[in-house]
């Protein structure tokens, strides 16, 4: 996969040169970073996959994202309202991109060994920054694509091909929103406490989430009377719903 991405980058060689970047150095750095992404441990994959030397960890994460996207797409067949389906799917995109980012952010952006390795080498600052930017963009694009692809195909199948670009555009916007919010959250946390605390907080959030889900699955259905559930409807209240990102299209 790394090979394909790099040959894709090669098409933009002249653009990078024009920007004053040493293209071969940049390609070299991006290649190594992508290689490391593929070997890193991901929280998404759980403990079972963390042993052993896999070269395809990232592909597995993408596969999992696609599967979840498929499951979420079932809504498209249950719910008749296009608006509501789109809103739910976009909500899922934002939540899942944000969760992925939160768990990988510290390794992706706050990797401080990177400076010790790259700064003493004869590579210009501009090239290093461009390599980081390109790597981040590739990572984000692939992450977002793996999450969005299946829902897009399902929506296109249901509503016609013309809907696909619209949904992709909306999903792109949702992804940017998620990135923006996560970065903001991260900056705030790092501003007021340390990098180590961030990692602690991530674990607390993860523990909280798993508790919420296991307990919630047992308790919630017993709290709601069955008759009410049968007549349950989700309705838009334009005022409130439009304030939240997934419903901006309302």
């Amino acid at each position, binding site marked *: 996969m790394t090979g394909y991405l790099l040959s894709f980058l090669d098409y933009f060689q002249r653009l990078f040169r024009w920007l004053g970047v040493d293209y*071969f*150095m940049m390609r*070299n*750095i991006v290649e*190594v970073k992508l*290689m*490391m992404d593929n*070997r*890193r441990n991901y929280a998404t994959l759980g403990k079972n996959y963390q042993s052993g*030397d896999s070269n395809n960890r990232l592909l597995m994460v993408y596969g999992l994202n696609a599967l979840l996207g498929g499951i979420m797409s079932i809504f498209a067949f249950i719910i008749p309202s296009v608006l509501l389906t789109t809103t739910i799917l976009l909500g899922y995109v934002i939540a899942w991109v944000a969760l992925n980012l939160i768990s990988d952010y510290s390794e992706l952006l706050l990797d401080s*060994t990177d*400076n*010790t*390795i*790259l*700064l*003493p*080498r*004869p*590579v*210009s600052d501009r090239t290093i920054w461009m390599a980081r930017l390109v790597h981040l963009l590739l990572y984000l694009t692939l992450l977002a694509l793996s999450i969005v692809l299946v829902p897009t195909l399902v929506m296109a199948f249901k509503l016609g091909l013309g809907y696909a670009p619209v949904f992709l555009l909306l999903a792109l916007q949702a992804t940017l929103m998620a990135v923006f919010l996560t970065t903001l959250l991260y900056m705030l946390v790092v501003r007021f406490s340390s990098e180590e605390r961030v990692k602690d907080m991530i674990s607390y959030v993860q523990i909280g989430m798993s508790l919420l889900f296991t307990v919630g699955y047992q308790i919630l259905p017993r709290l709601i009377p069955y008759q009410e559930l049968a007549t349950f409807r989700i309705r838009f209240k334009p005022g409130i719903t439009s304030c939240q990102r997934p419903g901006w299209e309302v």
Partner: protein
Amino acid sequence: MNSIISIQQLSNTYPGGQQVLKGINLEVKAGEIIGYIGPNGAGKSTTIKILLGMISHFSGEVQVLGRNIRTDALDIKRSVGYVPENAALYEVLTPLEYLTFIGRLYGMDDAVIERKAEDLLQLVGLSSQMNQRMNTFSKGMKQKVLLISGLIHNPEIIFLDEPLSGLDANAVILVKEILAQLRSAGKTIFYSSHIMDVVEKISDRIVIINQGQVIANGTFEELKEQAHSGSLERIFQGLTGDDTTQSKASDFLQALQ
């Protein structure tokens, strides 16, 4: 005018306002081994990082290889090697992959890198681990890879920050011998360490800094005469002003009981 490194009135303040270096002056001639020592937090690593062009906010004049570090950092970096103190390398890579990556950053040919890397790894006894990921390596094994990565482009000046940490006795002897041979090949070595007897043995000249200032600069013999004591450890202790270690040690034992 034949100094290969020339530092004049070097000062540096951290963004927090803490002044790390307070006017350092230092001249290094080509082919010397400089032992650069000082207590923790004295500014050793900061000096090295400035000489490497990693830190650009400082005041004073710094020239390396006759060039100004502010304007010609890229050219200087090409002929300078650096072995950082804490094993900073990409651990999920194998030694061969990592060295290839570093070699390419110096613009070396893939075939040349591979030949050199294989030879060097074999010499330090890592030939069987050449294609294993470094996250399972011990500190000493990583240190060996780090050492090679700092030398693979055959630099003129070599900065070593605590290069012997984690190495076993045989590797220490090997590294010391390599340093001696590098010097006879005309390389300049800037060596920073806390292990005094090694510094004492390999250095042509010893520079001691404390609280951001050079407090001693000379050959081991000169320092011995100045301080009237026999070992570098004692000289260091005398100069950096901590002569209470003995009472501190007994206080420590007292506190344990």
